[in-house]
């Protein structure tokens, strides 16, 4: 199919309808992309704050499911924070997630290392992988929805435009973050 063609009125209608149908998903996607964008933009400052907290040995204790004890340093999201602990090899940092499940909180160190900045970068990279997973699944759901709603109609241009929009959301934020992360090193 030639994607430079103008969409037909039916494709335009399907696009508008799909945007409405997936409005909540699109809103959530954008909100989460924005949150990651903020983390990436503030990465040097957050790493600095984490380092400072570690030097002061401040923060409440969080014990992850493997039994390791961390001290809270900085919140990243509602359920994720940068934590620190002292080891024989020096200070160690981790992105720790406290996920409330039905009967308890699942507490995991997502990634750890001796450089707070690298820990944050790895966290951000992993989050972007999650967005790609989400994007692919949402695209598949849009495709499925349109095939059910408009059987025997070619709606690939609509699906493609959804996918491009979501991919652009992720990559634009990645480019911005790369440009802004060449700041202070600790």
């Amino acid at each position: 199919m030639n994607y430079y063609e103008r969409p037909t009125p039916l494709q335009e209608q399907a696009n508008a309808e799909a945007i409405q149908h997936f409005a909540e998903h699109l809103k959530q996607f954008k909100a989460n992309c924005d949150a990651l964008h903020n983390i990436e933009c503030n990465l040097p400052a957050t790493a600095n704050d984490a380092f400072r907290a570690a030097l002061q040995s401040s923060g409440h204790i969080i014990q992850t499911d493997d039994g390791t004890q961390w001290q809270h340093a900085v919140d990243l999201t509602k359920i994720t924070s940068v934590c620190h602990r002292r080891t024989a090899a020096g200070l160690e940092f981790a992105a720790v997630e406290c996920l409330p499940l039905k009967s308890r909180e699942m507490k995991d160190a997502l990634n750890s290392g001796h450089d707070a900045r690298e820990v944050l970068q790895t966290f951000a990279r992993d989050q972007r992988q999650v967005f790609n997973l989400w994007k692919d699944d949402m695209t598949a759901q849009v495709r499925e929805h349109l095939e059910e709603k408009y059987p025997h109609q070619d709606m690939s241009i609509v699906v493609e435009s959804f996918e491009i929009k979501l991919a652009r959301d992720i990559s634009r934020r990645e480019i911005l973050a790369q440009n802004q992360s060449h700041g202070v090193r600790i």
Partner: protein
Amino acid sequence: MEAIQENKEPTTTPPAERLAYSVQEAADMLGINYFTMYRLIQRQKLKTCRVLRGKLLVPRTELLQLLQTDLR
């Protein structure tokens, strides 16, 4: 106006007997945000399968396993 409840047999298969669920359905069942579901999938805490057109499905066994781990 509220509909009057009738004692009818359900016409569809109860959700608990399905073999797999979409990410949204699985998130609703676990009572967590569906973004968190994708995070669990990315971290391989939950295994999924892709059906036709690439949509992700979470097998019921995986959800039960996660809940059993959760209950320990």
